[in-house]
C-alpha cells in the first residue's frame, strides 16, 4: 500500500467513526462538533483524490457555514448546554435500517458503475478549479441550472413561510 492509500483509509475510518458519534452522542453540541470532524475528514479524502478545489469548497461551505448554521439553529431553539436524556428517537431502528439500505445502494451502484475505472491523478489538473469549471458549465450545465432553480424555490418558500407568520 502506498502512503496515499494508508492516509485515505485512515481518513475514511475517521469520517465513519465520527459520523457514528454524531448519531449516538447524548450532547447535541457534541453531535454538531463531531459533524465538523466528519466533514473535515471528507475534505481530506477529496484532497487525496486530487480534487483540490472541491476539498476547499467543502471546508468553506460545510465547516464554515453549514455547521455554523446548525449551531445557530440549536441556539435559537433549545440551547441545551449539557446532555439531553430524551435525545434518542423511538424509531431509531427504522432510521438505522434506512441509513444502511441507502449506503448499501450507493456502494453497489458506485461499484457497478465505476468499479474497474482507474484515473491517473499524477497528470495534474483533473481536480483543478479550471477543469471543474469547464465540466460544470459545459457537460453538466443543465443539472446545475435545475439545482439553482430548486434553491430559488426553497428561498421563496422560506420567505412565504416567514411572511405568513407575520400576518397572523
Amino acid at each position: 500500500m502506498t502512503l496515499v492509500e494508508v492516509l485515505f483509509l485512515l481518513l475514511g475510518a475517521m469520517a465513519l467513526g465520527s459520523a457514528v458519534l454524531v448519531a449516538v452522542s447524548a450532547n447535541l453540541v457534541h453531535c454538531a462538533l463531531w459533524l465538523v470532524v466528519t466533514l473535515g475528514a471528507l475534505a481530506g479524502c477529496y484532497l487525496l483524490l486530487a480534487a483540490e478545489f472541491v476539498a476547499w469548497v467543502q471546508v468553506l461551505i460545510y465547516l464554515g457555514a453549514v455547521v455554523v448554521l446548525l449551531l445557530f439553529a440549536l441556539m435559537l431553539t433549545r440551547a441545551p448546554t449539557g446532555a439531553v436524556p430524551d435525545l434518542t428517537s423511538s424509531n431509531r431502528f427504522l432510521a438505522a435500517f434506512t441509513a444502511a439500505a441507502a449506503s448499501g445502494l450507493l456502494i453497489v451502484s458506485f461499484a457497478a458503475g465505476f468499479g474497474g475505472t482507474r484515473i491517473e491523478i499524477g497528470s495534474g489538473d483533473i481536480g483543478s478549479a479550471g477543469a471543474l469549471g469547464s465540466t460544470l458549465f459545459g457537460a453538466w450545465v443543465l443539472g446545475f441550472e435545475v439545482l439553482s432553480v430548486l434553491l430559488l424555490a426553497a428561498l421563496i418558500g422560506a420567505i412565504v413561510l416567514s411572511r405568513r407568520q407575520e400576518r397572523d
Partner: protein
Amino acid sequence: MIDWWDLALRLGVVLVAFLVLPLLVGQLEHKAMAHMQSRVGPMYAGGFHGWAQLIADGVKFVQKEDVLPTAADRHVFRLAPAVALLPYLIVLVVIPIAPDGAASSLDVSLFFALAVMSVGVLGSLMAGWASANKFSLLGGLRVAAQLMSYELPFVLAAVSAAMAAGTLSLTGIAAAWNPWWLLWQLPAMVVFFIAGLAELQRPPFDMPVADAEIIFGPYTEYTGIRFALFLLAEYAGIVVLAALTTVLFLGGWQGPWSDQLGWLWTLLKTGAVSFLVIWLRVAYPRMREDQLQSLAWKGLVPLVLLQLVITTVGVLAL
C-alpha cells in the same frame, strides 16, 4: 523533488511572523489608540515608550490561574482557544509577500485562505457553548448571526478580485494587479475590508463580545493563558485580514523597486491596513444588532453584486 531546507526556512519565517506581527499590531493599538484619545498609553514597561508592555501582559496571563467552570463542557472548553487561533497560522502559509514569497504555492490559494479562515469562528462558537454561561451563549448566538450575514459579501468580494485577475492563486492575483484596480475594484475592496472586520468581531462590529452588556460574550469564563490565546487570535486575525486585503486589492509587493523591496511593500501595506483597523475602533461606536444585519444585507450584499457585474463587464470588454 521538494527542497526541504527551503520549505523549512519558509515555514520558520511564517511561524516567526505569526508570533511577532500580532504583537506589533497590539502594541500599535495600545499607542495609537492612546494618542487618538489624548492619552500616552503604556510608558514604563521596557523603558522606551512602553515597548515591552505586551511581553509583560503575556507573563501576567501565564501566571494567572486557569479557571474551569464546574458546569463547563471541559474538553470543548479547553479546545476552543486552539480552534480559534490555529487557522490564522495556517492561512499565513499561503500569503505571498513577494512574487516567490509564499511558503506554499497552492493553485487555489485564495479558496484555501477563505476556507481556513472560516473555520476560526468555530472556536468562538465552541467557547460560547461550552462555558455554560448565559452571557457566553448570547455572545455565541451573536457570533453565529454576524458570521452568517458577513461571510457572503466577504467571499463575493474576494471572488471579484479573482475574476478580475483570472486566477484563484493569491500570487497570480497580486501579479495581475495594476493601479486601475484601485478604482475598478474599489467597492469590492471596501466590502472585503468591512466584512472582514465584522468576521473578526472588531469594533464597530464587536456586538458579540460587547463588554459593557454581555461581558465579553463567548470569552466571559476564560482566564489566564486561554483568554490570552483568544486575544492573540484577534490580533492574528487583523494581520491576516490586512495581508489578504493587501494581496487582493492593493497589489501586494508591487511598488517602486519591487524587484528588491517587494517584501517591504507587502509589509508596509499590511501595516497601513492594520492601522486603519485600529483607527476604525477609535472612530466609531459599536453598532446595534439590527444595524449590523441591515448593513450586511441591504448595504454590502447589493454593493458587491453590483461590483461583480462591473467586474464581468470589465473582464469581457477589455
